[in-house]
């Protein structure tokens, strides 16, 4: 069973995943580096199958950061797609590379640790994720519903405008297509 099929069986929305990829393509993103999270299995598979993107599954989140940062210097629009836990591992890389050199990078992450997240092991994300992003002054937007998906493109462009990282945080209900 593919990860996309599994995502479908666990209640995630293929249509929302398609809307996210369409928004990214319209924004000028052509390279996507990803690491898995159940919530975004459909989204990853959409990027993988879509010829508008060069999708690169990477070995760890820091590699996504490095790859997307280098891509900027080649004029390539990119996104680093990962779970919330992945972003939490990246504080050194973000501050050392993206802040020191003022290289923009755009992250899309899952909003793990929320009340509707059944995974006990994501309690730390519920407690600290937003505070960590705030602590390094990293602009983020929680995408809570389908009518907010265009803000993914805005968040990407904002990273280019301010030469810093920005984050689009994808909620569970959004990815399930419930809102």
């Amino acid at each position: 069973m593919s990860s996309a099929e599994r995502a479908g069986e666990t209640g995630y929305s293929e249509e929302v995943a398609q809307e996210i990829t369409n928004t990214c393509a319209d924004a000028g993103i052509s390279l996507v580096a990803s690491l898995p999270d159940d919530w975004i299995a459909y989204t990853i598979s959409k990027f993988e199958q879509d010829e508008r993107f060069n999708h690169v599954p990477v070995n760890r989140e820091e590699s996504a950061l490095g790859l997307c940062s280098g891509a900027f210097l080649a004029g390539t629009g990119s996104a680093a797609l990962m779970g919330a836990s992945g972003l939490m591992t990246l504080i050194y890389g973000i501050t050392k590379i993206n802040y020191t050199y003022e290289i923009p990078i755009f992250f899309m992450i899952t909003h793990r640790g929320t009340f509707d997240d059944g995974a006990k092991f994501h309690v730390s994300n519920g407690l600290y994720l937003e505070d960590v992003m705030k602590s390094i002054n990293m602009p983020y937007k929680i995408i809570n519903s389908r009518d907010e998906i265009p803000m993914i493109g805005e968040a990407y462009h904002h990273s280019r405008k301010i030469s810093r990282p920005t984050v689009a945080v994808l909620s569970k209900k959004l990815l399930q297509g419930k809102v």
Partner: protein
Amino acid sequence: MKYEEAVAYIASRWNDELVVTSAGTTSELWHAETGDTERVFYLEASMSLSSVFACGIAQGVSEKPVWVFSGDGAFCMNPGMLQVERQMNLPNLKHFMLSNRVYGSTSNVPLPGRNDNDYAAIARGFGIERVYSFGSMNELTATFDEAVMEPGHTFIHLEVEPMNYRGASPPMDGPEVKFRFGRYVERVTGRRVFSAPLDHD
């Protein structure tokens, strides 16, 4: 092989390749040797990200050869970098990994596994097809053209001696490195790197 001699030789063979250097010694030696401030991205203290950073560049400017340096200290932090390199298999990417078995940028503190790490075998284990391992200047100079000047993603392991070198960092802050390198890429490739939307509303 002496670290500084290996870097000096590679610099002497440098043509129009884009270069990404790694933490400390490599950046300092390359800048001391070349003085370049445009074609080199001095990526200092990235803790293992220089090669994936270079992948992002090489994928975007596929017509330009890209040379990237890393050390075995960084390599051991993230050997999975080779998975990404292999996955992307960029024919214009050459990865020089200088192995001195110590953390050379931090007072030569010995590296874990320093006696046994076989970096070329690790690279082959990740499926990389073009792997070279040089332990002397004679080997490096004799096979440089085959290893470096021919197309194909290549991992080049250079076994060098630890050195007590503490040179000056390239005299640029991060944003200057970014703009000089990015403007050079724009100039030679015609691509727009710095193209933020400029809406005024």
